[in-house]
């Protein structure tokens, strides 16, 4: 089963997987699932001097049939208090939607998500109430995010 899948897998995905393992980006781990090489288990370290610092956030990443023409599907599995990430872990990020380009890669996507943790954007919210909190009282929202990190992302 495994080797058969490997044979059907586009060269690009094989190359990307190999590079993710051999030269990982700092603070990002992405490991393909043995039974499904299009499915990746991801772990992103919370960036320093962000309310997510010290947390390890698990994500899942799936490469659809028409990848790289279509964007990968990515979702947070670890609970996180962030204005651009909702309760189900879905992420509001332009390159995962209309700004996707086939010249982008798994690595660039994960780096963008890491950057999103450093710079939340409450003006383009996915989680309405979190974004509201962020805008009305940023210090308190940041405290809440830090508490969530301590509670769920250790």
């Amino acid at each position: 089963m495994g080797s058969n899948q490997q044979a059907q897998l586009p060269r690009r995905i094989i190359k990307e997987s190999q590079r993710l393992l051999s030269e990982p980006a700092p603070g990002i781990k992405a490991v393909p699932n043995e039974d499904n090489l299009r499915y990746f288990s991801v772990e992103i370290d919370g960036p320093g001097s962000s309310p997510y610092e010290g947390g390890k956030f698990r994500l899942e990443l799936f490469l659809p049939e028409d990848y790289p023409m279509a964007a990968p599907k990515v979702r947070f599995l670890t609970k996180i208090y962030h204005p651009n990430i909702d309760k189900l872990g879905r992420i509001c990020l332009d390159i995962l939607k209309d700004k996707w380009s086939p010249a982008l890669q798994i690595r660039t996507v994960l780096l963008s998500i890491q950057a999103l943790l450093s710079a939340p954007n409450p003006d383009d919210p996915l989680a309405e109430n979190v974004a509201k909190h962020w805008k009305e009282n940023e210090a308190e929202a940041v405290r809440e995010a830090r508490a969530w990190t301590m509670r769920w992302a250790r």
Partner: protein
Amino acid sequence: MEDDSDYEDSYVASDVEDYPTSEDGDYGYDPQTEPEISMRRAAYTVLSEEELKLRQQEALQQVMQVLSISEGEAVRVLRHCKWDVNRVNEEWFADTEALRDKIGLVDEQPTGSGRRKESCGICFDEFWVSEMHAAPCNHSFCRGCWKGYVHTAISGGPAVLSLRCPLPDCSAAVPAALVTAVSDPKHREKYHLYSLRSFVEDNQRLEWCPAPGCENAVEALHEVSNEAMDVTCRCGSSFCFNCKEEAHRPVDCETVKKWIIKNSAESENLNWILANTKPCPKCKRPIEKNQGCMHMSCSQCKHEFCWLCLASWQEHGERTGGFYNCNKYESAKKRGDYDAESLKREHARVSLQRYMHYYQRWAENDRARSQALSSKAEANDKKLEVLSEFVATPTSQLKFILDAWAQVVECRRILKWTYAYGYYRFGDNIPDEDTAQKQQQGFFEFNQGQAEMFLEKLNGVVEKDLDNLVEEFKREPGLSEVAPDGSVFVDQASSPERQAVWSKFREQLIGLTEVTRMHFVKLVQELEKGLDQLLAFYSEQPEAEAEAEVEPAAVSTAEASGSATPAQQATAKAPKRSKRSRISSRAAADKASNSAAAFSLQEADSELEAEAGYWQCRRCTVINRDLNSQSCSMCAQNRRGPISAS
């Protein structure tokens, strides 16, 4: 720039010669008799898909020449400027760099040697550079990846027309030539379709015909405003260029929009009110209404009540203002019968009832229009041929029947919209003190009523009367009597008796079609001028000026084309008649300012009749050649007296 505007001028001028294309030979009859009634004719042309492609190509060529750019670049620039060639010139020469930047036009980058292998940034495979493709930015990808990229974008919709280089942060526009070079026929076709759609949909002067299955577009030949503009496509459907609803002149787009929203908001109430049964107000049993009379009597409890307001019939006497006025609310309010709460409820009900009055008439005329359309098609398909044998006349000479139907169709459409107009123009309850409003309402309703009356008559003659006539002809066999010496037929169809009956019918129908048309021309003209202005006009303008000013524009062409048949004479005559009647109307209005009936088109005018050499019966519309006779040769209607019931 100067060259350019010259080009634009000649481009429009040649189109104007094609115009009017709205009357193309679908029906195969003289476009002169096209019933379209509008005072302000819109200049437009109908373009087929092929013609649109040519137009688009013309615009592209023009921009390519003037700006010395490639076709791919011209597409981008034109799209950005909504396919307005003049705007392209303005924006381009105002700041070329800014515009190029905005729409992703980059200078062609030098390509490296083809005898070299490079890795494709999408599939990571190695290719000879000569086998790879790139936008002018020269960011190369392999053909397979380009194909995937382009196909995905095409499947994503018309945004593919603004496709940029796949490299993140490179905003170079992907030229159409590259898109079509790498895509398969199916996707290529879709891309061309998007491109053509953009040409129409982004272009202020173009609109698609909204008729299902029709692929034509209509092009305005002048600067478009946001006013109603009725156009007729080659497929026969009419629509408003401004709001895309069905044609609705003389009523404005705003009224139409409000009316359509109102109808959908009220749809629940409408179902209730258009139903044929209502509960008896006393015993609540369902009572069915199967006649026109509003006086209901419950079969169970024998309660008598009014269908419209559900009040007891006893209250519908002379005392409350008579039956059809049904104005219990008014008088009850005056008597102070209602407390605030029931007053509010009563007001809501009256308001709904008032709406129903207009809605019913709007909907019935809409239905009647559809029926007339299919009757016309039926006549065109079959009926005329049958008739042709009965009256020994080629079908080409029976087209006046189609003209009559076409007139019915157009008048139903206008009449329908005058009900939406009436609903909004006059409030729920015009106070007695507001004599101006009352007067305008009376004026409008009188003319609407006149137009409607003639339309009903025309509809009846071309429908029932014609059918009866055909039935009559059927009973007298066309071919009869075999002479002793062999087969000599007496042709009943060309007998003088039948010919006389037929020509009388023909004159009546042609006359009636024209008279109906005139009434609607008048109605349309009034609404387009605005009732308040008209009334002011009637009460202020000196007579001489009035004569000079009220010249119905639309019919002046008919006047110019002098001809011999009575029908055409009637056409030529009509404008003068209506002009004259307006002026005498003004005099009458001065005398009895409140009487709407004073504005009658039927004002006797022996001078004009003498000039024309005939007088037209106001009841059956037959042309009477005896200027001395005082009663109609066809129906005995008095020449000057009130119109008697048929």
